[in-house]
């Protein structure tokens, strides 16, 4: 079941479009915000609200890298792997993250704290190398700075 709050938020964003299905991506982000990820069951529930088939909605859900179709950690780390960050030391940064967290790209720590994902250019090329944790952007990274940042998350 979707919660009343989820339904209310989805209905509100659907008002922005002449057809409800256009709100698909935003609806999926709404439920993801509340639940952390989007299960098969949730795709069906959201599709019902948007009056479309769950297959159609899943085709959209699987297209975008920010719709998580598997559980993720409490915090998602997006480490920029595009050209400017690559020049400025992406390899060193990502290896430090992997070692510190004890996981590879696409994996979640055993305590469910962090998921580590590579991401295309974060548009922070003037502060490369860069990463985002949840909605927070961090630039000019080095090993020491990363350790401090990680320590500030529960």
């Amino acid at each position, binding site marked *: 079941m979707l919660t009343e709050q989820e339904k209310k938020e989805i209905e509100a964003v659907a008002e922005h479009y002449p057809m409800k299905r256009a709100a698909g991506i935003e609806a999926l982000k709404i439920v993801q915000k509340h639940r952390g990820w989007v299960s098969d069951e949730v795709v069906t529930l959201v599709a019902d609200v948007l009056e479309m088939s769950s297959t159609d909605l899943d085709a959209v859900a699987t297209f975008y890298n920010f719709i998580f179709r598997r559980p993720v950690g409490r915090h998602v780390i997006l480490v920029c792997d595009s050209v400017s960050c690559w020049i400025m030391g992406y390899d060193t940064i990502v290896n430090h993250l992997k070692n510190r967290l004890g996981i590879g790209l696409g994996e979640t720590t055993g305590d469910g704290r962090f998921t580590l994902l590579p991401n295309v*250019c974060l*548009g922070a*090329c003037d502060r490369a190398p860069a990463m985002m944790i949840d909605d927070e952007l961090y630039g000019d990274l080095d090993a020491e700075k990363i350790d401090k940042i990680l320590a500030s998350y529960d």
Partner: protein
Amino acid sequence: MELPLTQNIRPGRPPLNLAEYENAGGYQGLRKVLAQLAPEDVTQLVLESNLRGRGGAGFPTGRKWSFVPMGEDVPRPKYLVINADEMEPATFKDRFLMEGDPHQLIEGIIIAAYAVQAGISYIFLRRVYVTASQRLETAIKEAYAKGYLGQNILGSGFNLDLYLHMSAGRYICGEETALLNALEGKRAIPRSKPPFPPVVGLWGKPTAFNNVETICNVPHIIRHGPTWFRALSRVPDGGTKIYGASGKVRRPGAWELPMGVTIREILEEHAGGMQDGLAVRAILPGGASTDMLTAEHLDVRMDFNSMQEAGSRLGTGTMVVIDDRTCIVGLLSNLMHFFAQESCGWCTPCREGLVWVAKILKAIEHGMGKPEDIEHLRLHTRLITLGRTFCALAPGAMEPLQSALIYFEDDFKRHIHEKRCPWR
């Protein structure tokens, strides 16, 4: 030197709120338009200003608007879509404008919507621009409250609703017909053209498309006129440009400068030159999908025509500076991994071709390339071209590669011959 786009931007501080923006002369362009000008007059002024699209293609903005059918009998609502999906690697200029002065963009949107008589506008924003989304949402609310958006704007009879649509990733959404599908709630694959979006766009209705930076210029053109706007530039294309530099320069950043400054001026005067001990070897002038230039090209002007004459494109105008200790083959391998991953998979040359090219480059980078690989790469740059693909993604991916094969063929050969990366 007048710098209209960034005149209100105060780095490190929040953007101007509506009242502050008005005190700085904001929304006067809009007031002038609604009180004195017909929609066609607005388009004519923009045409005369020689404003060319800042998303990368450089198409004259006024001409673009003139393709939108006008009159009582056309299908409605018409739409105006603002492409704020800035996902071209190494590009961060639209973020700077949206975070720095959101009302400038909103005023430009209302004027542009009036010019094409659009009733609904969407800002299509990329997922990771969280700060920009918060500042735009606040500014949109303020604009509604003041009567700049909604019904009967400033008593003119013109109506416009503006919505922020935040995407969920994928580079292909920046392609305008893929973006249309994304907004309609479908998989973001490109559409076949014709019909073109100005005539048959969002939900089949006429739809104008513009980049964020392009639209931010519009209020200034209206306020000060096309002659003033053309005079801001050092070349026939009107206005200023947000240029940027990243890579191992002393002061990476973005700056508003007259259109047509040279690469050298941006690199040496604004980015502070190269870091100690490094020399510039190559430049990606306007994002990942532009042809590389070399240290020989530093005096080329960064405008649409000059860059084209030099064999590249202005693109987004935010350049990547590649130093002499960075491996060009490794860099291309990074770029091609990006393009192959971001292919939407809709057409074969892109879906299959880019992966193949990426694999060859990775093999060469790691010392496992074969002499014939260089010809295979060249062949792909000749085969994956506009006209053979649905959209410009894959042909764009070939631009840095084809230029690297011209200027830096020896780098490829050394990797293959020495069976390792000589830069590591």
